Each structure stands twice: as C-alpha cells, then as structure tokens.
C-alpha cells in the first residue's frame, strides 16, 4: 500500500469511529420511525376464558357470563370505549365498508386505558329479565348487564330455518382520537347470537 491508500484507511476508520461515538446524539436528534402496523383487537371469550362455550340458549332470569377483551397494538397507550348493543336479526349491524357503527343506541359501555402491547379484559354478565311470547313473536322487554337493568323492548320473529328467536349481543370498539378530541369508531365489532327461550 502506498501513502495515499494508508490515508484513505485512516480517514474511513476515523469517520466510522466518529459515527459510532455520535450515534446516541444522532438518534436523539433524528428519531427513527418504527414501521409497525397499528391496530386494535376486540374479542369475546366464554365463561371459562376460552373461545368456546359461549352462551346461546338464554332463558328468562338465567344469568350468563362472557368476557370482553381489547388488545392495543397502536404503538402508544390508548384510550378505548366499548359499546354494548342489542338487536334482532333485522336491525342493522355496523357497516365495515364505510367504517360506520350501528345506529342502534348502546345499552352499556366500558372504558379502558391500555398500554402499548397490553390487553384488557372485563366480565359481562347478562340476563333476560322480562320476556313475553305472542305466537311467532318474542319480546325481550328488560335485560340486565352487570346488574344494571335496561328496558330494551326488542322483538324477534320465529325463524323457521334455524328454529329460534334470534337476538345478537354485540360490542363496538371506539378509540379516542387525540387530534379530533373525540372517540372514533375503530371498525371493529364482535357479537354472540342468542336464542331466546321461555
């Protein structure tokens, strides 16, 4: 090697060492953006914390338990709201294509602050308290969720194909948007079908 080549080796080595030593301050001044997908999870588990044995046949005054869970993968601590809604087969569900929640009024709600990468779970106990059957029509007048009684007045007609009076208890997930300063529907919902029996 001649002197010019030695000079290049010295210069490159010095530059590398300088970059290594200055790396912490460079990292502080120029934050490296993390390219991870941001999303939220919403789930319902059965009474034994598994994805099976969800309640289906519901009799009057019979209390059932499920667990509501939310997972945060947004990259920051998130503030969530879960709305509980109740409907029959003809009433509208949320529209996934337009990211619109169901227009039905909520009957119960949960609030949760979840760290990034963490999950949150809460029990949801429900029961039909007052029902009536008139021929091919079934009416749930009152139901309770976590010991709070609600008037729902929801009618379901007999479905001969699936032999039952079907209702759905479903949950919608909302995330607090710090720019809009309000909750935004996260386009996530889950539900369980219930067959009402007297």
């Amino acid at each position, binding site marked *: 090697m001649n*002197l010019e080549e*030695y*000079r290049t080796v*010295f210069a490159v*080595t*010095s530059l590398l*060492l*300088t970059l290594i*030593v*200055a790396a*912490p*301050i460079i990292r*502080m001044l120029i934050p490296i953006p993390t390219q991870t997908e941001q999303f939220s999870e919403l789930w319902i588990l059965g009474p034994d914390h598994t994805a099976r044995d969800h309640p289906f046949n519901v009799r009057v005054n019979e209390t059932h338990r499920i667990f509501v869970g939310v997972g945060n993968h947004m990259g*920051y*601590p998130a*503030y969530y709201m879960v709305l509980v809604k109740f409907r029959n087969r003809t009433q509208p569900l949320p529209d996934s294509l337009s990211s619109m929640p169901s227009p039905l009024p*909520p*009957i*119960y*709600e*949960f*609030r*949760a*602050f*979840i*760290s990034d990468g963490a999950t*949150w779970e809460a029990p949801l106990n429900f029961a039909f308290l007052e029902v009536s059957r008139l021929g091919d029509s079934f009416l749930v007048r009152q139901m309770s969720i976590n010991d*709070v*009684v*609600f008037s729902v007045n929801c009618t379901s007609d007999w479905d001969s194909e699936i032999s039952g009076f079907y209702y759905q208890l479903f949950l919608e997930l909302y995330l*607090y948007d*710090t720019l809009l*300063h309000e909750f935004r529907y996260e386009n996530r919902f889950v539900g369980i079908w219930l067959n009402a029996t007297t």
Partner: protein
Amino acid sequence: MPTYRSFLIFTVLFALALSVFPFEACAADAEEAALAIERAEGIMFSCYQVVLETESAGEEVSVLLARLNEAGVLLAQARVSYGVGDFNGAARFADLCYETGVEVRHEAYDLRHLAVEEATQRFRWTLIGSIVGVTIIVCASFVSWLTFKRYYYRRILAMKPEVVSGES
C-alpha cells in the same frame, strides 16, 4: 260554601304543585348529572393527554394508566346510570371519576415535569459525551496519522536500492 271552594282551589293548586315540582327536580337532576358527566369526560381527556406526553418524554406510565382505568370504570358507570334514569347515581359516579381524574392529572403533571427534566439532562450529557468523544477521535486520528506518516517516510528513506543480477 266559600270554605269548600277555597279547599277545592287549594287542592287543585297542591295537585298542580305536586305534578310540577317533582318533574322540575328530576329535570334539574338530569341536567346536573349531564354536567357532572361532561366535566368528568373533560378531565379524563385532559389526563390522557398529559399521560401521553409523559410517556413520550420516556417515563413509565403504567401506574397512571391503572389509576385512569379506575376512573374510567366510574365514568362508564355514570353514563350507564344516566342512561337508565338514575341521575343521582350518575352524578355521584361522575363526581368520583372527576376527583380521581384530578388526582391522576396532578400526578401526571409531576411525572411529566420529572420526565422532561430527566430527558433534558440525558440530552445534555449525551451531547457533551458525543462532542468530547468526537473531539478525542479526531485528535487521536490526526496524531496517529502524523506519527504513522513519519514512520512511513523513515522506513522508505531507510530502504536501499536493490541490484538484481542479470539485468542490463
């Protein structure tokens, strides 16, 4: 007869008062409960904002989030109670949520202040360390290069021309 008439008027007025006053009281309760819920919502949003800033400054916020969750449960209960017409319960839960929220916000402000101070200190020391480190490396490289160059020239000058046999 006048006694009977005055009694009748009094009864009618009393009945009217009974029908109007409970309604007004109920309306006032509903309004108060709604205001309490709105106030609680406001404190929760502001708390969350401060917690986010604290987390961005590099501080651990899991304890604050746990406290906020307690307040969140109270707020949800307040809203549910309001929905079923239990305005007293709604106002009570909302006030409890507000009180918890105020405490959490106070703690979050303290923690954020601490986090910002720590971050400033960390930045200052990192900057000083980097400047010192870079200066040392630049000086050391320069001195090494001069030393090496001197050694290189000395070695070159010490070399003797080699005579290869068989060449013309």
